[in-house]
């Protein structure tokens, strides 16, 4: 269908035009292996290093801090597993609203006999800092918290959590995947030990991400069999993806302020339109500290999955939460953690957009969403 409106940027976004152009050139013109000695290899190496620098610059970190990986899921697995392996008596803590690539690793480590803990959140999706501190007092060695939540857009108090972790001498990991390209991300200022990132939520390609490491912090590899990324990520470097990552990171550095401002306007526009609905509609997440590009809403008595299919037929791509859990019957663990009962949790629908989502698209989308919500509410 033409005239589709894409409102699922938190799952993944389309490539920015400059990213696509640069990657196309790379696919045609950079054949070498970045570890090879010849000139084709050197060209590839220089592209990988340029990407590292561009990303480092976008997040306020030195270039040596950046380990390029296959994406945020891999990065999260790597940071947590590496910590568990390298620490005497590890005790790992995360919030109840983390992405499955953190939460399930923590669960798995727990099953493997490591001490783990999950901190509850309140109705806005914000972690209980007292519980977090209590857990730190009991000897937690690593705290993992996301900068911004993928489902509700809630921005967590990562600076405060970082200070707490610091006070108790725990390692602090921040999953910055959903924050990058939406709000200012400054690694130095954050004071975390590790930050994990992905390229494809901000207009870059899928299949590349990073672990950013504070000076003096070591992260071991998940796999073995190659010395790449200074022994921290074996496997031939993905040069075209690195080039795409660079272009996206450069765009973030140059345009974040504009993006942030316009995304916020789009979000207000959409919410102002949706709240006019004759069907009672609820905003989920933190109404104050939140991403400018994400709206999680629930229309009274309307099943989220029905809503998504009906919206899709009207040309709107949206989601009910993490694409990693979609297609299962389970309601979102994030919404459940916020205290909603199962049937209400199933009503959540997430709209998320990006820098290329324009005003007209939002206005058009709002009309379609309202008509679908009204129709489905009528069936309920």
């Amino acid at each position: 269908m033409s005239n589709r409106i894409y409102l699922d940027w938190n799952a993944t976004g389309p490539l920015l035009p400059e990213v696509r152009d640069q990657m196309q050139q790379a696919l045609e013109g950079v054949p070498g292996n970045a570890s090879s000695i010849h000139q084709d290899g050197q060209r590839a190496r220089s592209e990988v290093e340029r990407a590292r620098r561009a990303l480092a610059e976008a997040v306020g970190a030195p270039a040596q801090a950046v380990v390029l990986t296959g994406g945020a899921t891999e990065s999260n697995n790597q940071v947590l597993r590496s910590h568990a392996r390298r620490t005497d008596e590890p005790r790992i803590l995360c919030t109840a609203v983390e992405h499955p690539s953190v939460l399930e690793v923590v669960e798995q480590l727990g099953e493997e006999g490591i001490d783990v803990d999950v901190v509850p959140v309140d109705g806005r999706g914000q972690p209980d800092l007292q519980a977090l501190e209590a857990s730190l007092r009991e000897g937690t060695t690593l705290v993992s918290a996301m900068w911004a939540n993928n489902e509700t857009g809630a921005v967590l108090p990562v600076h405060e959590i970082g200070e707490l972790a610091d006070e108790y001498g725990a390692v602090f990991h921040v999953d910055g995947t959903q924050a990058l390209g939406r709000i200012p991300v400054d690694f130095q200022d954050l004071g975390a030990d590790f930050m994990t990132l992905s390229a494809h939520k901000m207009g870059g390609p899928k299949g590349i991400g990073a672990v950013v490491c504070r000076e003096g912090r070591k992260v071991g590899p998940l796999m073995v069999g190659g010395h790449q990324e200074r022994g921290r990520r074996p496997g031939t470097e993905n040069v075209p993806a690195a080039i795409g990552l660079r272009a996206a990171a450069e765009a973030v550095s140059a345009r974040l302020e504009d993006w942030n401002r316009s995304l916020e306007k789009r979000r207000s526009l959409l919410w102002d339109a949706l709240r006019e609905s004759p069907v009672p509609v609820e905003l989920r997440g933190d109404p104050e500290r939140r991403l400018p590009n994400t709206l999680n809403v629930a229309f009274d008595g309307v099943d989220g999955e029905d809503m998504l299919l009906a919206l899709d037929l009207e040309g709107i791509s949206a989601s009910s939460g993490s694409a990693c859990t979609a297609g299962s019957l389970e309601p979102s663990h994030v919404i459940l953690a916020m205290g909603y009962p199962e049937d209400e949790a199933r009503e959540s629908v997430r709209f998320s957009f990006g820098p290329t989502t324009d005003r007209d698209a939002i206005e058009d989308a709002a009309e379609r969403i309202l008509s679908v919500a009204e129709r489905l509410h009528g069936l309920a």
Partner: protein
Amino acid sequence: MATTPTSTEAGTPEIELPPVREAGDDLGTIVEDRVVVAMSGGVDSSVTAALCAEQGHDTVGISMRLYSTPQDDYSGSCCSPDDLFDARQVAASVDMPFYVANYQEVFRERVIDYFVDEYRRGRTPNPCVACNNHLKFDILLDRTLALGSRYLATGHYARVDHSGDRPKLKRGVDPEKDQSYFLFGIPREALDRILFPLGSLQKDEVREHARRLGLATADKPESHEICFVGGGDYKEYVEERLSEKDRRPGKIVHQSGEVLGEHDGIHQFTIGQRRGLGLSYHKRLYVQSIRPEDGTVVVGPKDGLAARGLVAERCNWLSFERPRGPLECEVQIRYRTDPVPALVTTGDDAETAFVEFVEPQRAVTPGQAAVFYRGDEVLGGGFIEEARS
């Protein structure tokens, strides 16, 4: 079969959306001309979807994920990843939206648990009927409204005649493929929303359409097994799901009263079964009845005891709310057997039917469906509770 079609229309069946009989019920919620097609990934539902799309209907495909197959099991029947991919590919090739709906939980409760439980009780379940009643023509039909469609089309070989003042469920014209036996449980008021475009076609013609339309599933083999059991043996499947205390061992007894042997669970038997009795006897023996109370399995010769009637429970009526007085009709007590003349009377609530055969019948099997026909038309049906002699 009682009815053999005298002629079949070669060519393409015209898929007309039935008229809305009760105006104003849900018109506001409906997208005009939209049809949801249940797609299993097989050739029949693929052709159904492609024909709907070809005729210009706003067609939406939906596959039900009913159970998960282990990653290392490549045997694929419906609902395997391969089948979902086939359905998706067909949908893409005719440019229609396609979704997978996850109904594993309700399938487990309403079909798999029922299936195992019936064998546990010494009965012979009919999982296809259960799936039609509780999934396809219940939750999936409900789902069509959310998708803005009043209509659900499936690839069953049966027909709904929408021409008269009430819809009639009829046999498919291909006597080899007719599936109306499995469809008696459709709610009467839903018939007007259901389309069976293949009901007027022969299987060969369906294959021809598949090739003409260039569908990826055109040459896919038929699947006959019980889908969730896969290629395996259903007895093993049931056994794996029965706890030790649910196995009912007992004696195998000849109808004359002679004890011939023992067995370790009635779930291994079905009425009419000959193989796997584990007996040596100078004549062929068939299972005649199963007594769950004490675990006894009664065997005898093929032309053993015939029943003069049966009791059917949980009846659903399609041609009327309930029969007015005794009903002369034909009853079919198994898939792929001929219907036989009978007189049917109903209990107070019309959910219980007492069937008297004109000629006594063998192999009346509790758990199977008794479906009532008049000529081509399905009047209703229910589940066989017991044989009456």
